């Protein structure tokens, strides 16, 4: 049986979901979803070498209100356990990561035991020629609180062949590191409490090219200021003293501002002769004033198989260069309190600020059922993805060694109900 084609074309001109559990925009101009929509997803994220493991439980509900409004709500819980690299040590000329170890008082048997709960909601209003959306949410962990509000505007032009998208959001975050051997402390070795504010803006255009293809191009701008340091990361410093040298770890320090720009281009093409398969191609370039440029290439093939089944293989390649203030280990002089690196305004050995590349590949299976009496459509999805992070995968090469290499797999299973 053919999968449901009841979705109006306008529903497909979407500028995609927010990066973190927030609002999913199911349509822009001309409200399309006249049904209620319920989703539930389970995810399992698991890193190599017994590092981080996260169980994710998420639910979302969307409801039409009156003639022109849609309300949606999203709830998510992440249960996080495991260990994480703290800093790099240089032993006998070789660099290796020091991974956080479990403390005797650990509630889950690992060095990191955390739970993140988030709720977000959005209201969309559809008018002739466009739509406007207001959204907001809260995300809470033991050591991190984030609250945000945002708004999006979509305008249809050119007989609805072209859609312009404008978005903006601001987030107010509070950081209170949990008591742990590696948590940063104040000058008096007390617990720290810090704030961070982030603004994000989007300018985008979606264009129907012909009856089988469309294209989206987005530019995003983000500016963060406040406490941008990771309060659990340290750096090793080799200090030269007269006649000998010694190494010791000190807390990392990042700039208090960051500006990032990204440009994403997405192309989608329908192949009627291949059972209505679709090809998705994405390329994104990003750069920031910490010196990190990145390239992301992603391709997926959506192939309907008989009777409501669809299979979606996907590949992705990501590459970034290192931040200006990143080094695997440092050498220099310390300030008089032995807690900061003298002559540096910022320094970090966080593996996520190093130069590296990552290949990932995955496959997803979808089953749609549309012949149920009281339910418009029920669909099930399950997928698995494997991601491999290696320094040597960086575009242009990287000879810094394999000490920070790791991989993870991500399993997802979900169902969606339209009623």
């Amino acid at each position, binding site marked *: 049986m053919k999968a449901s*084609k009841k*979705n109006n*074309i306008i*529903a*497909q001109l*979407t500028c*995609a*979901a*927010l*990066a*973190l559990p927030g609002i999913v925009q199911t349509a822009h101009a001309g409200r399309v979803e006249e049904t209620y929509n319920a*989703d539930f*997803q389970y995810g399992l994220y698991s890193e190599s070498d017994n590092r981080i493991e996260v169980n*994710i439980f998420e639910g*979302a509900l969307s409801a039409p209100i009156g003639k022109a409004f849609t309300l949606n709500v999203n709830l998510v819980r992440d249960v996080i356990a495991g260990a994480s690299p703290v800093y790099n040590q240089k032993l006998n000329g070789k660099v290796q990561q020091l991974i956080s170890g479990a403390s005797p008082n650990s509630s889950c048997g690992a060095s990191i035991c955390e739970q*993140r709960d988030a709720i*977000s909601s959005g209201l969309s209003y559809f008018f002739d020629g466009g739509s406007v959306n207001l959204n907001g*949410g809260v*995300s809470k*962990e033991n050591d*991190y609180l*984030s609250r*945000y509000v945002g708004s*999006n505007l979509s305008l249809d032009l050119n*007989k609805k*062949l072209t859609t312009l998208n404008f978005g903006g*959001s*601001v*987030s107010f975050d509070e*950081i209170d590191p949990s008591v742990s051997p590696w948590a940063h402390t104040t000058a008096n070795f007390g617990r720290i409490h810090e704030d961070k504010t*982030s*603004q*994000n803006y989007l300018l985008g255009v979606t*264009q129907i*090219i*012909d*009856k089988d293809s*469309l294209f989206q191009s987005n530019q*995003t701008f983000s500016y963060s200021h406040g406490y941008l340091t*990771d309060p659990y990361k340290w750096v090793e410093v080799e200090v030269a003293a007269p006649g000998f040298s010694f190494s010791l770890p000190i807390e990392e320090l990042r700039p208090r501002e960051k500006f*990032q720009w*990204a440009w*994403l281009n997405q192309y*989608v093409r*329908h192949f*009627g002769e291949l059972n*209505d398969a*679709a090809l998705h191609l994405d*390329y994104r370039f*990003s750069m*920031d004033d910490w010196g*990190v440029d*990145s390239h992301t290439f992603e391709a997926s093939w959506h192939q309907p198989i008989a009777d409501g089944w669809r299979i*979606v293989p996907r590949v992705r390649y990501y590459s970034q260069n290192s931040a200006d203030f990143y080094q695997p280990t440092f050498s220099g002089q310390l300030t008089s309190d032995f807690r900061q690196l003298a002559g540096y305004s910022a320094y970090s050995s966080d593996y996520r*600020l190093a130069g590296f590349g990552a290949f990932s590949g995955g496959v997803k299976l*979808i089953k749609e059922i549309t012949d149920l009496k009281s339910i418009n459509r029920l669909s099930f999805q399950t997928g698995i*993805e494997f*991601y491999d992070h290696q320094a040597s995968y960086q575009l242009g090469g990287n000879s810094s060694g394999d000490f920070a290499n790791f991989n993870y797999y991500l399993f*997802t299973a*979900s169902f969606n109900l339209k009623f």
Partner: protein
Amino acid sequence: MKIFNVFIVIGAVMNCVACTEVLPRQRGNLAWPQMALTPDALEFGLRQHTSFSKEAGGGGYGGGGGGCGCN
């Protein structure tokens, strides 16, 4: 790569030499679920969250949402 992006945008949108008039009755193919820019929003959100936590690059996909202490 940035120059390549510029030409893609100009060619497909501004000039639209490749764009044809697509009447409403012809837009059926574009309405397939697999033709949506984000066919599975929850899975997309989870993958974006994972990338945000493990990579320094980011952006482009819209919105900002909130932050997290993701390690």
